[in-house]
């Protein structure tokens, strides 16, 4: 029986400043792998997690504790160990943002995908984890589209973009100025670029960092001495420098706005202490938002999002069920059982179509003939799997016969049909009786 296990170290158990230094490196995970095992490591600023299958719990604990420089006992205290369906559920929750510090934040899915890409490059994942990760992406996507969690972007970056969209009709034509190459400003700038904004200017004290970010965002890098001109030319300003004093004052903005003919400017100050004097919001057509005002909005949105958690959890439970069924069927016994179940479904379907045309006697003859023919056809894949019960053969068989796709449908119909369920039992009993 394949069992997925997980160790999770997150912001709930470890302070953020320590957590930032904890990292389960994919390269180190590769060295842990044993033949037939799979693993997946996820590192973000709020969590470090490893998921694996085919390895002993204690062995992984020892290696991970060595990796992050703590004793296995201490790791046990600061981490969460999950196994089976619990670990699958946890991964689905993480990818959907339900375990994030900012509930429902969208960036985590990108990080989960990036970690999967690394795992693929390092050959850490195979059949089980490929399926698990694709199911994870599907679950996260469903939650974003089917619940309102995605409708209320609560991360500060999303909030900034949302705000700019309320002021500017064609945000893609806006000019964006990012002052400081900090993480939050970078995320906000990335989100603006994703919304089609192409004219992005990065202004930083260290021009090299500005150039790196500008290269990533297809933008322009400028030095701090060009602040005045850059401000005059920008419609959206995102600032997050480490400056101890405000770098943009009311007088400076009043002068710039006059030169801009009071064309509106959205200013997002996500620095602490502030980069922009609060009085700047009094300058005509300056829409200034700092962390305090954004946090208020974020807090208000939390209440709305929490209503959607129950709905998101329903989706997760459904997807965990689908994945668990697939995992349980991922052995010779389960696959052969499903093949016979499929066979019975086809026979039932054929008989149901012809019922009105023939009598009971003919129906029994037809049923015997159909079953006999189907058994001969199904006998080949069944024998093959019995002789070669390898995971990839089993997975291919399941794919060829699409055993996981219409499971719910088939199962439901068979349950509702007394005749079919009798046949199914008969077939299962027949199968159980085989050597």
């Amino acid at each position, binding site marked *: 029986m394949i069992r997925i296990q997980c160790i999770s170290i997150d912001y709930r158990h470890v302070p953020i400043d320590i957590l930032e230094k904890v990292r389960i490196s994919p390269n180190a995970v590769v060295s842990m792998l044993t033949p037939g095992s799979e693993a997946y490591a996820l590192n973000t600023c709020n969590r470090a997690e490893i998921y694996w299958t085919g390895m002993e719990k204690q062995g992984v604990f020892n290696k991970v504790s060595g990796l992050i420089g703590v004793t296995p006992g201490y790791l046990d205290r600061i981490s969460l160990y999950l196994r089976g369906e619990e670990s699958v559920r946890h991964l689905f929750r993480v990818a959907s943002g339900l375990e994030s510090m900012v509930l429902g934040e969208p960036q985590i899915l990108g990080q989960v995908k990036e970690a999967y890409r690394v795992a693929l490059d390092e050959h850490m994942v195979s059949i089980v984890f490929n399926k698990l990760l694709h199911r994870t992406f599907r679950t996260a996507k469903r939650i974003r589209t089917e619940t309102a969690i995605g409708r209320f972007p609560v991360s500060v970056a999303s909030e900034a973009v949302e705000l700019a969209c309320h002021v500017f*009709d064609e945000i893609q034509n806006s000019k964006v100025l990012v002052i400081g190459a900090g993480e939050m400003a970078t995320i906000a700038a990335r989100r603006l670029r994703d919304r089609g904004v192409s004219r992005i200017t990065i202004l930083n004290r260290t021009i090299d960092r500005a150039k790196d970010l500008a290269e990533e965002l297809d933008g322009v890098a400028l030095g701090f001495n060009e602040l005045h001109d850059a401000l005059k030319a920008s419609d959206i300003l995102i600032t997050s420098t480490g400056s101890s004093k405000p770098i943009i004052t009311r007088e400076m903005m009043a002068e710039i706005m006059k030169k801009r003919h009071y064309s509106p400017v959205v200013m997002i100050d996500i620095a602490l202490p502030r980069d922009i004097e609060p009085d700047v919001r009094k300058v005509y057509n300056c829409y200034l938002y700092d962390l305090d005002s954004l946090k208020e909005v974020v807090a208000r949105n939390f209440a709305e999002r929490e209503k959607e958690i129950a709905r998101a959890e329903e989706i997760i439970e459904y997807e965990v069920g689908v994945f668990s069924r697939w995992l349980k069927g991922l052995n010779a016994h389960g696959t052969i059982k499903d093949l016979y179940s499929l066979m019975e479904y086809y026979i039932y379907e054929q008989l149901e179509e012809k019922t009105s045309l023939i009598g009971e006697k003919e129906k029994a003859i037809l049923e015997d003939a159909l079953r006999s023919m189907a058994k001969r056809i199904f006998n080949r894949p069944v024998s093959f799997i019995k002789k070669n019960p390898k995971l990839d053969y089993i997975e291919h068989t399941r794919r060829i016969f699409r055993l996981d796709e219409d499971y719910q449908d088939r199962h439901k119909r068979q349950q509702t049909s007394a005749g079919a369920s009798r046949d199914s039992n008969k077939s299962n009993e027949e199968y159980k009786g085989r050597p």
Partner: protein
Amino acid sequence: MSIITITSLLYICTSVVFIIILPLRKTLLLGAARVLFLASVVSHGILMGKLFLVLHEIPLSSVPQAINMMIFISSVVFIPIVLSRKTYLLGVFFLPFASFALMWVFPNIGLSSLTPFRPHTYWYPLHTMCVIIGEAMFVVAAVTSLVYLVHESIIKKGDFHSSVSSSLPALTLLDRILYMSVLIGFVAITSGMIIGTLWAQSKGLALPKIMPKIVAGGIVWVIFAVCLHQRFAIGWRGRRTAIAALIGFIVMMVLLFLINMLFPHAHGPGLLL
């Protein structure tokens, strides 16, 4: 059922559906509102045609008729606005106003007792049409200003995730509509004033007789002229233009009623009697 009743009912139904859209935001309802609005404008157009056939002139011979024409032109201008995905919510603010104004105007329009009015000159309908088009554009500007001020206050409070604010057009788009309507309105009203002056001169009308209307028209003209001048000269955009347009519209409506109440023969066909 008369065309006036049909038009009234259509405008009222459209207003109700638009108001319901605000909290519910159902696509089906929006479709229904758009169809109803188009039907209202078509029906209103038929009514205008009927008035024209009776009068053999553009129906502008009384204040109710002038307001009726103003609402009709505003409704025509609002067609692309209501059909647009980004700006349809402006209809929520315009339709109740239009319905209310028409409810007041229709009983006084006197379709059955109309007497043809023939000024025997093209100057008069041209002057009146220019002024009415200008006023209709100021109606559009006033509605847009109202939406601008509402949306801006929502943004400043940071409450921009509510179902209403997420459907409101972006401030820059509202500002563009506002600017265009004020500009077209100002050009039309200025043309109307020039044509009116030429017409008055050709008729040899005494200045004291038309003075109240000249003063009223002048006040409205100055408000919108200042609004545009400040925009061109020092860049009044957004809130200031919205406030100025709203003030201009309120002053225009107040003066329209005051002048026609206090000096009934100081303007319009009365001058020719």
